[in-house]
């Protein structure tokens, strides 16, 4: 292969890897949506669609945050516990009897908790040099403990004014969902069309080189983990709106948000990913949940379907590399076989 062809192939490979997750997720959403709409009248009602989008909100927000962590080559598994803690705290600070004026500090407190947890995670990862998965696992346990300490069983309603404010919709589309779409698009624009976005990807791709060329790597990683936790705490608001009560039961949003990030195109090795992709993937995962329920399928099928789809998607994302590997493998294998026939009777080959 000439130098030019090699360069062209490399560029094509990068473009492919960037665009395929978006296309695949969008296609799957439309396909599953169309199929369900065709078979179930209840699906294409504005009630169900609004509900679907609202149910997507917590996972969508936390997936955007998780994508930040994935981009710098880390994980944050503490997000689920953080979201739960936010729900529990909201059941104290944002109760039906709380006055509108007091709601503001109550809400700020949740974001403040997110900020503090993010800084704590970043401290463990950068100063004490713990691997992010272990560091955030520790944080997860601590936050979970605090949540159970505050509410040992689900109780304490959450202000319905707040819930209806959060759920304000235009036709069947919640305003918040529009907001999160805009946020994701702006995020991608920043990531792929700005210096600081490029610096973030650079740190994820190769930290040593990034430090050598003068990027403040600690700064970048701290910001990524703080952004992750703050977005998770905002996701906590929407989780609160969903459960409407101070429940200390932890969901599995940590693994789901990593799945959404990866389905949306993020690489676990860091440096690659898309906020919009993560949002689409979050919508897709919620959609599967929603439509299988309409078909009255038990949840175990939902789980298995999601697992299979994740594996298939990740294999497809490897696209060009995988094809190249299989093709040369098959080609060389055929050639060998032919040579083997020609040389039968001679010294045994391999």
């Amino acid at each position: 292969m000439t130098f030019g062809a090699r360069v062209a192939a490399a560029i094509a490979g990068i473009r492919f890897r960037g665009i395929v997750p978006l296309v695949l997720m969008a296609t799957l959403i439309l396909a599953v949506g169309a199929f369900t709409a065709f078979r179930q009248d209840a699906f294409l009602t504005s009630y169900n669609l609004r509900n679907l989008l609202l149910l997507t909100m917590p996972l969508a927000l936390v997936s955007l945050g998780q994508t930040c962590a994935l981009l710098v080559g880390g994980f944050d598994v503490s997000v689920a516990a953080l979201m739960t803690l936010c729900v529990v705290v909201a059941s104290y600070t944002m109760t039906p009897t709380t006055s509108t004026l007091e709601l503001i500090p109550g809400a700020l407190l949740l974001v403040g908790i997110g900020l503090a947890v993010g800084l704590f995670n970043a401290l463990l990862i950068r100063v004490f040099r713990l691997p992010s998965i272990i560091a955030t696992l520790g944080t997860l346990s601590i936050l979970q403990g605090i949540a159970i300490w505050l509410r040992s069983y689900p109780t304490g309603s959450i202000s319905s004014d707040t819930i209806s404010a959060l759920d304000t919709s235009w036709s069947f589309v919640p305003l918040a969902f529009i907001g999160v779409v805009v946020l994701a698009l702006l995020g991608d624009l920043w990531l792929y069309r700005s210096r600081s976005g490029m610096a973030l990807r650079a740190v994820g791709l190769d930290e040593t080189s990034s430090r050598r060329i003068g990027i403040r790597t600690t700064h970048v990683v701290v910001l990524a983990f703080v952004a992750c936790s703050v977005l998770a705490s905002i996701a906590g608001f929407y989780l609160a709106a969903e459960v409407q009560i101070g429940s200390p039961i932890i969901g599995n949003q940590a693994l789901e948000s990593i799945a959404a990030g990866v389905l949306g195109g993020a690489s676990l090795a860091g440096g690659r990913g898309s906020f919009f992709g993560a949002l689409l993937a979050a919508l897709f995962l919620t959609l599967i949940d929603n439509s299988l329920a309409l078909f009255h399928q038990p949840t175990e099928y939902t789980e298995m379907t999601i697992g299979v789809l994740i594996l298939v998607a990740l294999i497809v994302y490897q696209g060009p590399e995988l094809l190249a590997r299989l093709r040369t493998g098959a080609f060389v294998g055929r050639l060998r076989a032919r040579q083997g026939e020609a040389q039968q009777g001679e010294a045994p080959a391999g």
Partner: protein
Amino acid sequence: MSIPGPAPVLSLRSVSKAFGVVQALRDVSFDCHAGEIHALVGENGSGKSTLLGIASGFVPPDEGTVEIGDELRRRLAPAEARKLGLGIAYQTYSHIQDLSVAENLYLAVPRSLQPAYGQMEEWAAEKLAEFKLDVPPAAPVGSLSLAQRQFLEVVKSLLAEPKVLLLDEPTTAFGPEDVERLHALVLQQSRAGVGIVYVSHRLPEVLGIAHRLTVLRDGVSQGTFEAAGMSEERLIALMIGRPLQLAFPERHAAEGDREVLLSVSGLQGDRFGPIDLDVAKGEILGIAGAEGNGQVEFLRALAGAERATGSAACDGRELDTGSPLGPLRAGVVLLSGDRTREALFPVLSVRVNTTIQVLRRMGRFGFLNRRRERGTVDELVRRLSIRLASVEQPVQSLSGGNQQKVSLTRPFLRGNVNVILAEEPTQGVDVAARFDIYDALRAKAKEGVAIVVKSSDPLELAGLCDRVVVISRGTIVDEIPGEELGERRIVEAIVGSRAAAARRPA
């Protein structure tokens, strides 16, 4: 543009640094004037990297001060060093491989010199043209050849218009032509008043370009000398503390017709071939050529590390090159040039790295005999004069040349070695060690092993090999028999083939 004068642009005063029990630098002073090319030489582990680390702010000195321009610092952060006008090109590069050339250039310059984001590619194209580096700005750095990456590293360090430029082994991936190109650039920068600190193992290169030289040995400065009037012998004596007989190991007399051990016919891969080649028992065959003409891929295909078609036989038996296991079983050993990624386990100890392929012989009933293992390793450490504090030290903590020697221990340990394929066996290795390696290879050849050496250093090929083939665009274009071997003849063959290739319509 300033006139080269006595003003030092970089000056280190009495710096010392210890890493644990190892004293890496002891009371070293060093300065580099504007417009001067000041070479820093020393064996591996003599403290050159530590000195560069201190100058660039990555390594805080235990004692002493750093002065860049007129700013004196006891502690210096890398970002501050850059701001004060220090540029550095790393031996192991500072590229982000998945980003494009343009993006890498963009990230490497301070904000004040960055163009608007949208103009990045045009700006990069301009800069590349200015430095005559012919690569597409949109290409990911990972798709460039090693030589192109190395040149890009130097270009990157120059973009911020530094007052002092540190070049750490800037020519390891270069053939003679590229070296000349780089030196032209270095001279041009020096004439423009940039102070240049030039670190290299290639002494003729250093003597050819430097104004002054500072020699380090075991972390202690052996003095600073004018380059004019310095000879290679004297420099080596200063580096290793004793005069060294610079002699390549003697070739043994060619016997009438030597038995062919490795026979390659019609081997063809992605970037080379078809190649036909015979290597005899006890012969050292050199492979020369401009970088990136398929030499590496050819060697790797023979070792089963790269896909290829065609056939190769070792000792009359067909080699299964489908995976590295077939050649290994037949006694064909590859010494990869990419030692940290392919040849060694960087975080494991010297002991483990040495014996990992022959553990079966190191024990009984599946348990290791530590005494036997230790004995074997100690013996090899002595034979190859590997410099280390302990054999339990992780390999990554050794200097580059010593890492290379550790990877060389493997063919010495394996029982049934028939062919050694050595890719740049002395890349980044200091002089004394280099001759240890030549001796070791020759000793293996005397035992009847066939050796193929791919090297970008014509002097090395001329001195070490019995025969050299020149590869251009993936095929053998010239063969130089032993009696004609010489540095010049090899360089001419490389350049000649390049010229011929250029005349050929693409």
